[in-house]
C-alpha cells in the first residue's frame, strides 16, 4: 500500500478523473468546477449589480458540496496521504525555473515565493496571485467552463465548442509561459 503515499502516476490519475466525471453523471450532475465561482458571487449579492448573478443559486448547492469535499480531499491528500510533497519535475524545467529566479524548483509542492507565507510580504507576488485569479475567473466564465467543464466533460462529449476553448487554454498558457514569464519574473 506504500504507493498511496507516493505521487500517483498519470495512468492512475487520468482514469480516476474519468470515474469522477461518470459518478457525477450517474447522480444526475455535470462535472464543472468554475460555475461555483458564479454561485458564490450570487450568494454574495452580486445579483443586485448584474442580472447574470440573479438566478436561483440554491439549485447549485450540490456543486458547493463538491467544493467542500474537494477542500477536505486536499487536506487528506496533503496531510494524511503524502510523506514527501516534492514534485519530480524534469531537470530541464528546474534549470529553466532557476533562470527565472525560482530556487529549488520541485523541492516543494508549490513555489515558496508565490505560495509560501513570504508571498504576503511581496506586493509583486500578491499581484501575480490576484492577477492570475482574475484571469481564471473572467476567462472561465467567458468561455463557459474551465478544465473540468471543457477539457474533460465537453471533449468527452465531442463538443466542438470545448475543443475551441481548450485550444484557447493552450494558446493562453503558452503565451504566458514563453512570452510573458520572462517579463514578469
Amino acid at each position: 500500500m506504500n504507493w498511496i503515499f507516493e505521487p500517483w502516476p498519470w495512468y492512475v490519475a487520468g482514469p480516476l478523473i474519468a470515474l469522477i466525471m461518470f459518478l457525477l453523471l450517474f447522480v444526475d450532475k455535470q462535472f464543472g468546477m468554475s460555475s461555483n465561482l458564479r454561485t458564490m458571487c450570487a450568494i454574495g449579492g452580486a445579483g443586485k449589480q448584474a442580472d447574470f448573478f440573479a438566478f436561483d443559486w440554491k439549485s447549485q448547492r450540490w456543486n458547493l458540496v463538491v467544493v467542500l469535499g474537494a477542500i477536505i480531499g486536499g487536506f487528506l491528500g496533503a496531510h494524511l496521504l503524502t510523506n514527501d510533497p516534492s514534485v519530480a519535475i524534469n531537470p530541464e524545467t528546474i534549470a529553466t525555473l532557476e533562470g527565472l529566479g525560482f530556487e529549488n524548483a520541485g523541492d516543494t509542492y508549490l513555489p515558496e515565493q508565490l505560495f509560501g507565507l513570504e508571498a504576503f510580504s511581496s506586493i509583486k507576488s500578491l499581484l501575480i496571485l490576484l492577477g492570475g485569479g482574475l484571469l481564471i475567473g473572467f476567462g472561465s466564465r467567458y468561455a463557459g467552463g474551465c478544465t473540468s467543464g471543457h477539457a474533460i466533460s465537453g471533449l468527452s462529449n465531442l463538443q466542438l465548442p470545448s475543443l475551441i476553448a481548450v485550444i484557447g487554454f493552450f494558446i493562453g498558457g503558452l503565451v504566458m509561459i514563453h512570452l510573458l514569464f520572462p517579463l514578469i519574473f
Partner: protein
Amino acid sequence: MRRTIAYLFIGIFFGIVMYKSEAASWFRIYEMFQFQSFHMYGIIGSALFLGVLGVLLIKKNNVKSFYGEPIKFNPKDKSFSRYMYGGIIFGLGWALAGSCPGPIYTLIGAGYVSILVVLVGALGGTFIYGLIRKKLPH
C-alpha cells in the same frame, strides 16, 4: 441527505486525486506548457480516452443514472469567439497562478493560505465578467 453525502464523497475523492496526481502543483502546470513531461498530457489524455468511450456507451445503451433518470448531456451553445477569447484569457491565468478552479479548492484544504488570494481574484474576475458580458463578443 443521501444525495448530499454522495456529492461530498465525490468531492473528497476529486480533491485527493487532484493533490496526489500533482495536477494541483504549479510546477506541473509550468512543465506541461514547456512540453517537458508527459505527466499532465497522460492524465488529461487517459481521462479523455475513457471519457469519450464511456459517454458513447451511455448514449448507445441509453444507460440510466443511479436514480433511474436518463443521463443528460447538455450540448454547448455554438460559437467561436467566446470560447477562443475566453479560453485564451483562462489559459493566461491557468499558467500564471498554476491552478485551475478545482485545484484552487484542493490547495485551500492542503493549507496554502496564499491560494485564497487567487480565489478572491477568481471571484472578482467572475464578477467583472458578469458586469460587462453584454459588451463582449460571444
